[in-house]
């Protein structure tokens, strides 16, 4: 059974923009798949469709063999947005505990899990801080801890490190890989950074813009575990070049297009 199974998915927005057209994609359990493409290729929209945060105009999505809506209701996935989306009125520990509260976990079970999660994202000792007392990178680690707190098998990440500086981003990339290997979860990761996609993924999905389509699939056969040394290997650069060429071939004028207005087609 696939972790994610996307069949013939299209999405048209109210403004008449076709964000996605005829997307077919299967993600196997334990894979780390990145969606990469220029702005406006609908990669974030595709991620939201997987999470049932928006409905496709056509096609079907299954997560762990269930229709997307059912999967969402069964808490099959955790999501991380570009903004950490932490609640200022909650401490770090309480933010991580939010999904656990909604799942009616007991207090002692919650506290034990919060401790484990803080350890996982290396934030032990910060449980009583408020989000605004943390740096952007730390906030995003809290957000990851929250997404993983209830052990979903699938982690959806929408440009989670896009707003961070390069050094923080590379460090969090390495940490994320460690977490991925430790938890064994499946990850679908949206990015517009080519090196990030290559470094993290087992497979990169290259998308074209207007309308968003799958333009190519690249297997990333870099050995695990990956470290900062991985970024200096010749094969890493070969793969980066390969992704870049596929993006160019897909007619991606990088940085030229705009995201369509996210007004949904009510039809």
């Amino acid at each position, binding site marked *: 059974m696939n972790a994610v199974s996307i069949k013939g998915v299209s999405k048209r927005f109210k403004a008449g923009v076709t964000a996605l057209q005829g997307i077919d994609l299967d993600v196997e359990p334990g894979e780390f798949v990145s969606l990469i493409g220029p702005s406006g290729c609908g990669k974030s929209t595709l991620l939201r469709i997987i999470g049932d945060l928006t409905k496709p105009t056509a096609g079907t999505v299954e997560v762990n063999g269930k229709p997307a809506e059912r999967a969402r209701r069964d808490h099959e996935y955790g999501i991380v947005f570009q903004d950490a989306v932490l609640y200022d009125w909650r401490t770090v520990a309480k933010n991580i505990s939010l999904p656990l*509260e909604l799942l009616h976990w007991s207090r002692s079970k919650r506290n034990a899990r919060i401790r484990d999660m803080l350890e996982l994202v*290396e934030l032990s000792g910060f449980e009583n801080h408020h989000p605004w007392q943390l740096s952007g990178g730390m906030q995003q680690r809290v957000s990851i801890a929250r997404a993983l707190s209830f052990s979903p098998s699938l982690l959806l990440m929408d440009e989670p490190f896009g707003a961070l500086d390069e050094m923080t981003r590379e460090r969090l990339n390495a940490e994320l890989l460690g977490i991925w290997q430790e938890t064994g979860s499946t990850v679908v990761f949206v990015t517009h950074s080519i090196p990030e996609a290559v470094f993290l993924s087992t497979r990169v999905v290259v998308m074209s813009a207007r309308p968003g389509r799958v333009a190519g699939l690249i297997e990333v056969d870099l050995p695990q575990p990956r470290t900062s040394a991985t970024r200096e290997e010749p094969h890493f650069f070969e793969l980066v070049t390969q992704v870049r060429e596929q993006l160019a071939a897909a007619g991606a004028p990088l940085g030229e297009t705009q995201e369509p207005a996210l007004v949904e087609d009510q039809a």
Partner: protein
Amino acid sequence: MSTIVQPAPRSVGRRVGRTALDWIPALAVFVLGIAAWQGLVAAFHVQEFLLPKPTSIAHAFWDQKSALWSQGIYTFKEALGGYVLGCGLGILVALLFAAWRTLSSAFMPYAVAANAIPIIAFAPIMNNWFGLLNPFSKMAIAAVLCFFPVMINTLRGLTSVHPSSIELMRSYAADRVSLFRRVRIPNALPQMFTGLKIATVLSMIGAIVGEYFGGPTEALGVKILNDSSYGNFTDAWAGIVMASLLGIVFYAVVALAERLTTSWHPSSRAFHTE
């Protein structure tokens, strides 16, 4: 990674010291203002009935302090009753409007239009409805004055939630009650308190103005009105001072409650990180 700036532990003494220091400019303005008032009234021989000297007002205040206190408390109770009623209703309506858009679009235009009516003009009618001597006639005016600012501010807080906050809750399949309890209501607290603070002063105004149109002699507004009509303007000023003091204390108590419940909000963060 672990180089986050921790709020440095500070001694209580230093904290109080800092707070006292913060008050010095305001205190200086107060003292200078009173001194200037006193000096100008004396220098230009302003008649007592036009503007009494601060010392005369203080004198009158001291002489009548127990009467002023009981009159003040009488009026404050009316204000408080109206405050609780108006604010409670304002918060309730805001919750209903936030929960049901249709309700909001059906009633909001009328709420806005009603707010444009000079409510104070209804004071004599309220007195007629509920009885001159019935404190509820003053509570009703105070309540109507408090309702709108609390309702509109709370509603804005409830509805101005970042879309991704709502998407996050949706990803957890959270129901509407959870969304309100865990996101919309905490998000609304700072704006709700803005309304609640405005309403403290409005409730005092409502009660006193209501009393101007008639009320029992144990009420502060009636006392101010009577003193003025008999030409005892210094005594009237003493009554105004009492009303102001009560209004200020009322405001301060609500502001303190705000600090205690929304210490996470940027406007209160100095408490944590200064």
